[in-house]
């Protein structure tokens, strides 16, 4: 990690190609003087006269050539995100323009920011704690509004709140055990083993719920792993192209995967889909046949979400039912797309309701772009309406938190094990305090005197 805080850094802080406005941000001691060299405020006033935290209109210039007309916000330290001087330039969203604005800043004294460096500075300057820093990093990486919402939740401390409540419960329970150890003759009622066990079960459930949302967070961050299934010539590639047209897809070769696998990252009404392109679905139907349905099923097993395309203009064949069986067995979230509605319905749709819920079956014509909006709404509904409920308050977005939660889970399981094995009570507090410590890692808190304070506040002790 680089701990140089002396230079001024700059970067594009909005996702490339998304939206009409892009923001280029600078942070550092010299942010304002760099701005002075490239920005001409309207009305010819000086950059140094701009009031902190106000918006100023003007032009970004590169040696007298106007690059873009922009809105500039100057925010002076320390009341800024990084606690340094920060300048934000709101420019027009085209990739070329934005890059030119950044280049001119770099030419005039700013350094290119490393990934996450703004957040790192905020962190090093004591502006935010580790948990918040990570949420912010996720926010920066968020490619869709959906994830943005999850990250904002974190920032607002919903996770912290939840974790704090859990810790408080653990602490109270531990204090009840500990007081009995440190004050052997103390006569307050002690917690029965059954009570400890029952309470711990409840705590365990809460922690496990958090872990599940952590998985959810990962899904949202990386996109929902999606595979398009269907036998040949049902219109898979047309559907793919149709989805891609909907969004300016970023197509990347994923390192470490075989060369013939592409991942399409697309945004369907705010739902990030990461479509595994099994070796060229996008190419031609002929080539798909080379891979075969069986191969696609292998990918589908690893996926979180399946789009199953069937041809409604023909009756269902054994191959179709094989796929239905597969979906039912794997219990994957699936939307069944009955394609080619333009050719008339010949397939017996009723038969497939044995395999999938009616509400996730939709009839479309990819060719005539009929039913596509409904399809998108269906996908969106699947994620917003409780099926995979990302709005469900707590989202523990990142892996570090997940590791801490899993450790806490393990400790709580140990507590239950200890009760079941009829081990003496001392062994209970050991794992309870471990769980307390692990949860503390998430909100960056130490264990220290907490238990002592709790004992003295809850019990009447003394000579």
């Amino acid at each position, binding site marked *: *990690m680089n701990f140089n805080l002396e230079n001024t850094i700059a970067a594009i802080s909005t996702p490339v190609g998304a939206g009409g406005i892009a923001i280029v941000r600078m942070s550092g001691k010299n942010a304002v003087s760099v701005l002075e060299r490239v920005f001409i405020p309207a009305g010819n006033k000086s950059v140094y006269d701009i009031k902190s935290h106000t918006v100023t209109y003007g032009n970004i210039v590169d040696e007298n050539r106007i690059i873009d007309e922009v809105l500039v916000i100057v925010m002076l330290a320390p009341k800024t995100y990084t606690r340094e001087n920060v300048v934000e330039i709101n420019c027009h969203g085209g990739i070329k323009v934005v890059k030119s604005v950044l280049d001119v800043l770099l030419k005039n004294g700013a350094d290119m920011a490393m990934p996450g460096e703004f957040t790192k500075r905020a962190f*090093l300057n*004591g502006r935010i*704690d580790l948990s918040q820093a990570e949420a912010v990093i996720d926010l920066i990486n968020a490619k869709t509004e959906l994830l943005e919402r999850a990250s904002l939740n974190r920032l607002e401390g919903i996770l912290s709140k939840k974790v704090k409540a859990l810790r408080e419960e653990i602490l109270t329970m531990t204090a009840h055990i500990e007081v009995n*150890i440190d004050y*052997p003759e103390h006569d307050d009622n002690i917690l029965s083993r059954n009570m400890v066990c029952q309470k711990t079960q409840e705590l365990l459930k809460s922690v496990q719920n958090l872990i599940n949302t952590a998985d959810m967070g990962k899904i949202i961050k990386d996109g929902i792993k999606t595979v398009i299934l269907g036998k040949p010539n049902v219109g898979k590639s047309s559907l793919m192209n149709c989805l891609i047209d909907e969004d300016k897809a970023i197509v990347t070769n994923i390192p470490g995967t075989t060369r013939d696998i592409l991942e399409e990252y697309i945004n369907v009404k705010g739902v990030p889909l990461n479509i595994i392109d099994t070796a060229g679905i996008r190419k031609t139907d002929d080539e798909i046949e080379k891979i075969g349905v069986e191969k696609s099923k292998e990918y589908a097993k690893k996926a979180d979400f399946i789009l199953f395309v069937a041809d409604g203009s023909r009756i269902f064949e054994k191959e179709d039912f094989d796929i239905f069986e597969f979906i039912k067995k794997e219990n994957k979230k699936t939307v069944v797309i009955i394609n080619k509605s333009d050719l008339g319905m010949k397939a017996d749709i009723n038969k497939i309701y044995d395999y999938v819920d009616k509400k996730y079956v939709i009839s479309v014509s990819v060719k005539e772009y009929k039913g596509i909006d409904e399809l998108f709404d269906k996908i969106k509904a699947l994620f917003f309406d409780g099926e995979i409920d990302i709005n469900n308050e707590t989202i523990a977005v990142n892996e570090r938190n997940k590791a801490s939660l899993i450790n806490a889970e393990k400790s709580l399981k140990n507590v239950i094990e200890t009760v079941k094995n009829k*081990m003496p009570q001392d062994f209970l507090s050991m794992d309870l305090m471990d769980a307390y410590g692990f949860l503390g890692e998430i909100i960056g808190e*130490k264990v220290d005197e907490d238990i002592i304070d709790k004992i003295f506040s809850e019990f009447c002790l003394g000579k």
Partner: protein
Amino acid sequence: MRYDAQEADVVVVGGGHAGCEASLAAARMGHTTIMFAINLDSIAMMPCNPNIGGSSKGHLVREIDALGGEMGKNIDKTYIQTRMLNTGKGPAVYSLRAQADKAKYHTEMKKTLENTPNLIVKQGEIIEIVTEDNRVLGVISESGAFYKCKAVVLCMGTYLQARCLYGDTIINSGPNGLRNAVGLSQNLKKLGINIFRFKTGTPARVDKRSIDFSKMTVQEGDERIIPFSFENSAEKIEREQIPCYLTYTNTETHRIIKNNLDRSPLYGGIIDGTGPRYCPSIEDKVVRFADKERHQIFVEPEGEDTNEMYIQGMSTSLPEDVQVAMYRTIPGLENCRIMRTAYAIEYDCIDATQLKLSLEFKNIRGLFSAGQFNGTSGYEEAAAQGIIGGINAVLYIENKEPLILDRSEAYIGVLIDDIVTKGSKEPYRMMTSRAEYRLLLRQDNADLRLTEKGYNVGLITKERYEKFIEKKDLIEKEIERVSKVNIPPDEKLNRFIEDRGGSPLSTGIKLSELIKRPELNYHDLSFADELRPDLPYDVAEQVNIQIKYEGYIKRQMIQVKQFKKMEEKILSPDIDYYKMKGLRIEARQKLSQIKPHNVGQASRIAGVSPADISVLLVIVNQLKNK
């Protein structure tokens, strides 16, 4: 008139529990030592509760003993009742506690001090520490005598600027009506030492003949005696025990207290010292826990040759007439006659964050501080610091590395690390909850943990050390054997297991696995273990604990490994934290003030966040790579 008196290597100021251990350690390590007590009749005095040990404090006593200290041996000589508390709550929290005969405890300790070679015991008040270039040169007594020395250990307890209070009665004295020490505070302040004011208190002593014990519950001692000192055996110290008694306060007691709160110096604002939460006065308890209908009161003998009974749970600073009225509401105390009135005591002590982990002042070389004067409470806590202070004073003179026990090695380590790292806003009491690795820091294995260290500094004799090595070998060999022995299913054994509520064996099983079953233990299975050697109880006990709780112990040992990693990242005292950008301002201030010895200690400073520690780690690594 100032005159040059004796010369010595070490001077110990104070003859309480810290002073005794410090003096004995220094003298036994071969250095001439003078111990000053304000009154030789108050050596090793117990001005408050008449017992030694208890939860976590018993651990401290055993650790002191393993290092070669005196407290364990002295209580073994003078106990009048002994109990192992917390049995059934787990081996780590077993706590040995003994009622002491206070007078004999004092006499025996004084006898030991007086007969220790190199040790000179003197009555007198020290009023000045003489330093030059921030290094100790000697001390001056109230009579003007200058004692040249190389190191000083301050063990003034609660005597400095002390005053005792109850109601509107204020007595300028130390505990128990003994003279207080008035000279040294000013001198220490001049030396740049930051002084706090703490308070504590003690209940009344009541004439045994005025108590109706039939209204109380008797509390007898244990039948099976366990000595504090690893050098003693039960047979060697066995004697007749004296019971204690249990009774309770009631709503009438509480009513009297509430009606007279305005007459308490505590609530009237006369006392400004900070009192401990764990030893609140009865008025504190009644106010803070108003919904509690009764509080426990233990009535404990102060010795064999006295009628004074200690009324545990009734510490107060209310006026004498209120004390009489409220004591007399308690069943069994209706006609009680108070022999010594309860009082609160205020005294000067230091902010222990001014000390290094060796208990030496950061700003004065050769000046050490130990005991209640460091802001702790309790005889055992004092003695624990005393022995470390004494040892380190000598190691300082000998130009050797100080003896520092870390949090994974001893309660003593937890205690010292806590007070010098976090400081204390109230008198600090040892508690098992403070020890993160308490499963390893058991009272039963204090010798295994510390005897070697005691031997290395010269406080454990060769004879005792060899016996200890022998014990260690026996334990290791037996654990190895038990892990290998296979126990076949057997009718008698299965019946035994079923009687205990376990499920019978169908195939053979390793003895160690059998011991791990909740309903069984090493001791009980001897009938099924034909080849078992005849082992002393303490060896068998270790084998049982180490096998039975192996899983938990191993997990804690892994944690200790993690902990040690941070403890091993040493921070130079010359680091300028103010120059470390990235650390929050508060962290920079705290780190500069405490000057932690290592990153682990830094992480325990209040006001230093985990984020600061990650930054610190990165910077330290960068410094190292330069």
